[in-house]
């Protein structure tokens, strides 16, 4: 029943938010021009765009730094989050001994701990990656664990009746069942990793978008601040879109991915 939606339909769906956002930006610009509010309080969208081009090379350089930190931290989360989830579901001993520690670590605000890593790891790349990792690890780990555990009993019994090994049970049943959950967690974790890198940069750094944010704040260059925020959101969204694409490739059969068939009646 799958069929690509026709182009006009996509336009129709996009129309609502595009109109709403245009109205919002227009009102903003008009307000700034008419009220004569000072630039450093609120720059208009046009000015922010202008600033974005003015800072283009600087912002590009900083986003490479931040992007690298985010990517490294996030990659660690994906790998270790998935791995620990498998371990915890594989062995109940590990479940009982590791799980409480993970849950306990959850009660400690990672953002509050960030300054510690500067004390321990210095001013380089390491503390930023670590904070990005720590903040984005948990959503991935928890949702993957839940996913691995959500395999139906009947399905597990079925595969066991084929005398499957534990590894086979995981490969054939548990992991495919867990993939949608894993991706759900992975999507949630994207902005987390970005937040981690930014907070890490705020603690101590001389490059990166987080550093540039504080610089702009210090100079009361609010348009530049907005431009940096936009760049940062852009980095986060690119990563998000990549994860979404991967999800579509990995689990084309899942509801969250497949196109609506259109038939949702109840007869």
């Amino acid at each position, binding site marked *: *029943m799958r*069929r690509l*939606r026709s182009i006009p*339909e996509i336009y129709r769906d996009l129309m609502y938010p595009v109109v709403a956002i245009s109205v919002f930006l227009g009102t903003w610009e008009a307000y700034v021009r008419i009220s004569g509010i000072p630039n450093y309080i609120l720059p208009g969208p046009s000015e922010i765009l202008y600033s974005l081009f003015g800072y283009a090379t600087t912002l590009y350089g900083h986003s490479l730094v931040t992007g690298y930190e985010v990517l490294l931290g996030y990659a660690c989360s994906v790998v270790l989050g998935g791995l620990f989830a498998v371990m915890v579901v594989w062995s109940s001993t590990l479940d009982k001994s590791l799980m409480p520690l993970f849950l306990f670590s959850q009660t400690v605000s990672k953002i509050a701990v960030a300054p510690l890593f500067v004390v321990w790891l210095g001013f380089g790349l390491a503390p930023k990656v670590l904070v990005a990792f720590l903040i984005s690890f948990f959503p991935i780990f928890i949702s993957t664990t839940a996913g691995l555990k959500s395999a139906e009993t009947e399905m597990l019994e079925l595969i066991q009746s084929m005398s499957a090994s534990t590894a086979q049970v995981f490969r054939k049943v548990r992991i495919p069942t867990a993939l949608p959950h894993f991706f759900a967690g992975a999507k949630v974790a994207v902005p987390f990793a970005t937040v981690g890198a930014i907070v890490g940069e705020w603690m101590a750094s001389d490059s990166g978008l987080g550093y540039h944010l504080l610089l702009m704040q210090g100079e009361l260059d609010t348009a530049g601040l907005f431009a940096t925020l936009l760049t940062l959101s852009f980095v986060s969204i690119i990563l998000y879109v990549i994860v979404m694409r991967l999800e579509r490739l990995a689990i084309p059969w899942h509801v969250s991915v497949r196109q*609506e*068939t*259109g*038939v949702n*009646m*109840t*007869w």
Partner: protein
Amino acid sequence: MAETTILVEDVSMVFSTRDGDVHALDKVDFAAREGEFFSILGPSGCGKSTLLRIIGGLLRPTAGRVAVNGSRVVGPTPDVGIVFQSPVLMNWRTVLENVMLQAEVRHLNLKQYRERAMGLLEMVGLAGFEDKYPYQLSGGMQQRASICRALVHDPPLLLMDEPFGALDALTRERMNLELLRIWEASRKTVLFITHSIPEAVFLSDRVAIMSPRPGHLDEIASTRLPRPRTMATMEDETFVKTVGTIRRSLKQEGSID
């Protein structure tokens, strides 16, 4: 001749979806008399539930006319009780609160209807369970509670959409007997949807046979079995014969192989 409770004239239903139009019903035509137990029998996906929702005023047909108790159906039919295949009990309400939902939404006198609800619960064998939550009941008990909810405001018309379809065969038989007992005591008009031939024959005065894609009523058969009906009715020669006749006509139109 008794009054007509449900009048369905040339009702067609087309759902337009992204994949094109789906013809769910095609020129359905029938009338059910007051106090009659009327069944619609057909394979799954033939549009039975759509028809029931149209009669209940929950869906608007693409073409045709529906009238209940002489007035045309334009929105949710005012005096109707509906039982769905799943009990759709609200798990945040106790059994009694679930039954009382009907009275709350209709702004009826809560005190008075509370007594009626308790009476109904007792009648279906749920006395003492009124303060339990749905998850504490078995599937059959849940469905009984949902029948009480459909009856509590004493509607002249009861619409039942495969109400026992999710129950096991033994529970289902018992529920059928209980439903007949309730119906004989209240003599409501019942529109009953099912895909079980014996169930339709056992319960009904008349059985309408529906063919799928698009749903169409092919034939209406009277069961002519004496009432009250008991387990023994199922061994009655007329019963067995009627079931056989209906099975053959379903086979003829290709609904069963």
